[in-house]
């Protein structure tokens, strides 16, 4: 099967809305966060950054939002090169949801917290409230007057996402969205991310090391190792390349392992990316 894997990120498509162009960043203690990182985001798609802890995923996504500035290279967001002067404009376009939801929720009530972003954008209190109500409705969070401190882990994650959504970004960047959640909350988050792409036209970038989730969600997969993207392509190509994944310290998704181990691979058979796609093939 012809591989559609680019082992180094290839030429930029013309419709890229974010282009990270050979960016390097070294931390003050000398550790290299990212090195010659090349990465793109395209409209209305979900791209996953897959890599183990310390690969450089979080460093990369903090660059996209302007929280970190590159030492070398440049980052273009909607045609603008990110620099200190336009960082507020960038943050209106690129929303970042951190891995630790507790670090994001610091207001006394859920509604206040979700309104924080829109108010900082300059919206009036009424407009900010409407945006917050909309965002909380999108994520299905009804307890808007609760104190965030007393929410469950899943609810905190939903409120954190709503807080960014209320800023109406064009790109949503999420770091480990389901890391410490139970299966039902994790599924809820996945459904929300999918609906953001499908119903709201928002491009989503997800940093994760859960390959099963990458298989279910991604339109494009990028493998990150040692501070660089070492491969990118369609999930049915990347996630079935066991050698590639292992070289990056990752495992094949369960679906891919089962499909391969059961010897179901053959010409004309589309590689499944979820159990729902795999089950009919097994039954056949």
């Amino acid at each position, binding site marked *: 099967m012809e591989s559609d894997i680019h082992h180094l990120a290839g030429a930029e498509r013309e419709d890229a809305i974010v282009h990270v162009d050979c960016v390097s960043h070294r*931390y*003050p*203690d*000398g*550790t290299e*966060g990212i090195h010659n990182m090349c990465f793109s985001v395209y409209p209305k798609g979900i791209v996953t950054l897959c890599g183990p802890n310390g690969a450089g995923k979080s460093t990369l996504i*903090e660059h996209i939002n302007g*929280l*970190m500035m590159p030492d070398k290279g440049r980052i273009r967001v909607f045609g603008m090169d990110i620099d200190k002067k336009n960082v507020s404009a960038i943050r209106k376009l690129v929303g970042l949801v951190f891995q630790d939801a507790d670090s994001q929720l610091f207001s006394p009530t859920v509604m206040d917290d979700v309104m924080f972003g829109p108010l900082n954008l300059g919206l009036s209190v009424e407009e900010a409230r409407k945006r917050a109500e909309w965002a909380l409705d999108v994520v299905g969070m009804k307890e808007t007057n609760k104190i965030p401190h007393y929410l469950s882990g899943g609810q905190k994650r939903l409120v954190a996402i709503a807080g960014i959504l209320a800023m109406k970004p064009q790109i949503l960047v999420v770091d480990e969205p389901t890391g410490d959640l139970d299966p039902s909350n994790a599924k809820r988050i996945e459904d929300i991310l999918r609906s953001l792409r499908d119903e709201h036209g928002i491009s989503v970038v997800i940093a994760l090391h859960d390959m099963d989730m990458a298989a279910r969600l991604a339109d494009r997969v990028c493998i990150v190792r040692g501070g660089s993207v070492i491969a990118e392509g369609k999930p049915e190509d990347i996630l079935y390349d066991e050698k590639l994944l292992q070289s990056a310290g990752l495992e094949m998704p369960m679906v891919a392992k089962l499909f391969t181990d059961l010897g179901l691979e053959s010409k004309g058979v589309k590689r499944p990316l979820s159990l729902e796609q795999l089950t009919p093939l097994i039954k056949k």
Partner: protein
Amino acid sequence: MFWVLVWSGVAAGLVSIALYRQGRGQISTRKLAIASMCVAVGFAAFQIEIPVFGGVHLNLTPLMGILVGPALGSLCVLTINVFSAAIGHGGWSMIGANTLVNMVEVFLGFYAYRFLRRYVKVERFYSGFGAAAIALTVSALVAVAIVSISEIQGSTQTRAQTMANMLVLAIANIVMGLFEGVVTGYIISFLGKVRPDLIGESAPARIEGLEDRKEVAADV
């Protein structure tokens, strides 16, 4: 009433200087978050009763001075005093006097630590111990002076008698200050191993805004 206004005025003056040194009200988000966390941790740490000598509560103000510097530390102790007054530890009318005393602790904690560490080249535990002990001893004497000058409300004792009583309390506070010095020394040693950048030593690990960190540490 007169002395409440005097001590509040002096404290307000010193806080204004601290605010000015923080860049006339402009403070980076990082410094704001760190100062606020310091207040919250200092306040929470007060709730810990160390089960020695019948139960000891700590000030941690010299430690705060070492961590965030005297200017930001002064703002932190003022905030802690407001929270403390709200819950009954210290009175609202004593915020001015308490803040003055705590500012002495923060100020001396910072400078004594720097002096001991950089110029006398004493190791971390003893620098922390020395800084806290010096700061808390001087502040205990400052408290004696403040209360002796303004006297206890409702008391008919002479100033000399008030001062004598306060000196007894000061001696008790100085002894507790020595204990807190030991605790501070252990904390500084611990921080030196885990996050030396927090006490202004060596490069930090993976922290954005090193320039901010240096500002916070060397907040003169």
